[in-house]
């Protein structure tokens, strides 16, 4: 309300008039700084030497007195926890999951939203109900299933459990409902079959919703901790997130080194957030709006 007018005033005048709003902002920025301080401390610690880490309580320096890249070099070259492999594994798993989820979920959403077949709604809600059975029930047998298939310690066992997600279909279906059918109908009259309508007409209109699903499944897969930790025992096949757990156990409390690995691990998701912030926020709002 006051924003429009305030912008035309000089900052000092605006400060005099809206001192309460300024004070609130200031307080919130202080809280935000405290809120994020583990991130700052960890970031700076990853550039400290071991000697300096041990001296912290004495000198209370947050920023390193002596900056070093030794921790990053160590992380990168450590043979016991092959970091480069973990980076590659994480990317392979996350990207494959995203691509497959997008194809599978959008095809299903198309069938439920644009095609007619007997028992459609019943099937959809039955699947939805089944998908609400908590993952813990299948945790143990899942491991033995992949063991029987010889897939434990293979990256594929980190991808397949997440492909059957019904909520993504629900999300895409709801979005597709809002796309007018005129286009597909005129294409159909022109002789286009469903595969053409799906891939040439519906999918291009679905980009915002597909982005949301892609971001959700990418971060979900990238950040998954429990299943990779349990299913993968060979360090060469670990993802970054589960690899950090191994690194944490095996670096003997050398926080500066563990934190260097952490800093490298968080780059992709934070970068994605900064680039696609709009879609992240939209997705969260969307999921609450349709479920709430």
């Amino acid at each position: 309300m006051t924003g429009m007018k305030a912008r035309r005033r000089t900052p000092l005048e605006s400060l005099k008039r809206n001192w309460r709003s300024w004070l609130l902002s200031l307080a919130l920025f202080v809280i935000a700084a405290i809120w994020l301080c583990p991130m700052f401390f960890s970031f700076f610690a990853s550039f400290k030497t071991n000697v300096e880490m041990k001296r912290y309580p004495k000198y209370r320096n947050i920023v390193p007195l002596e900056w070093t890249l030794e921790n990053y070099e160590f992380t990168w070259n450590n043979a016991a926890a092959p970091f480069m492999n973990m980076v590659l594994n994480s990317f392979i798993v996350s990207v494959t999951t995203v691509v497959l989820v997008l194809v599978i979920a959008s095809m299903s959403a198309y069938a439920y939203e644009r095609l007619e077949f007997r028992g459609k709604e019943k099937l959809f809600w039955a699947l939805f109900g089944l998908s609400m059975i908590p993952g813990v029930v299948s945790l143990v047998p899942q491991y033995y299933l992949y063991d029987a298939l010889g897939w434990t310690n293979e990256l594929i066992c980190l991808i397949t459990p997440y492909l059957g997600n019904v909520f993504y279909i629900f999300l895409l279906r709801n979005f597709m409902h809002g796309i007018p059918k005129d286009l597909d109908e005129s294409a159909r009259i022109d002789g286009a079959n469903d595969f053409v309508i799906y891939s040439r007409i519906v999918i291009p209109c679905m980009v915002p919703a597909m982005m949301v699903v892609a971001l959700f499944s990418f971060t979900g897969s990238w950040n998954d901790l429990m299943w990779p930790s349990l299913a993968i025992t060979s360090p060469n096949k670990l993802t970054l997130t589960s690899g950090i757990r191994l690194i944490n156990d095996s670096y003997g409390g050398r926080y500066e080194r563990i934190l260097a690995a952490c800093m490298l691990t968080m780059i992709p998701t934070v970068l994605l957030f900064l680039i696609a912030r709009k879609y992240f926020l939209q997705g969260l709002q969307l999921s609450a709006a349709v479920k709430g």
Partner: protein
Amino acid sequence: MKAKLAAHRPLRPYARWIPLAFLAPHLLVFCCFNIFPILTGIFASLTKWTLGEMPQWVGLANYANLLTNPESIYYWQLRWGLLNTVKFVVFCVPFRILVPLAFALVLSSKCRGHKVLQACYYLPSLLSLSVVMVSWLYMFDSNAGIVNTLLGLGKFRWTTTEPYNWIALIFITVWWGCGGNLIIYQSAIAGVSQEILEATSVDGANAFQRCIHITLPSIKFPLQYTIITSVIAEFGIWGQPDMFNGGGPTLEVVNGVNHQSNKMLMQYIAESGFGSSGVNAGVASSMALILGLIIFAVSMLQFRAMRRGND
């Protein structure tokens, strides 16, 4: 013209197998990798199944042991694991709702820099749990830790002292999980009618009264959604205690089972299902099914609310 065309067009302008072709990939992966393991889990919970052997049918013996037989180690695992998990849910969920709600309410005043602030408060939710845990282990470390230095606690051990290990775990979980709920509340609050808020403001209601009587009732459904999703998420807690202290200090030993201060049911399930010693996938499945039933009961509440909203 259009009506004429529609009349000539068959009801279904495509072959019967077309819907199936679109559904097949999902149905296939869903049945193989979601339904099949669930069915196996239910079956396995009725068997004795040790590593490398075929499962042997034992009927409801696993459940009988788990629920009624104090001689069995699993009886104590279930008891302590479930108690700790419930304790964690009860103490953690209120903060997982109230902290982001407070942030959302304050940010709804659209103060200067509210977008940057939103990103700052959201940021921890982007990190993977293992990164979060390492950062906080470093913060809470008894030697090099910043928390002890700032609070002047000397070499206080956060990981092994009750109830401070609980406080730390809940604090970390709230910090990590704040972002999602924050965004949901913010968008819900943005949808609250400005006219009613202004009208009550003219009538003399203060900010607190407006919040209690207008804003909160209007975001009832998002609140309910986040409460249920948070409860579901926290029932499955595993990573935080696993990386923080592996379950915490031993309080007592009964029947050769350590009663650990903050060991959760999920950790016991993972240990008896996969652990190197004394693997019993059958009992682990029974424990998983009991936990699963509890979570399922909570999610059914949400499912019902959703279908009501959709119909």
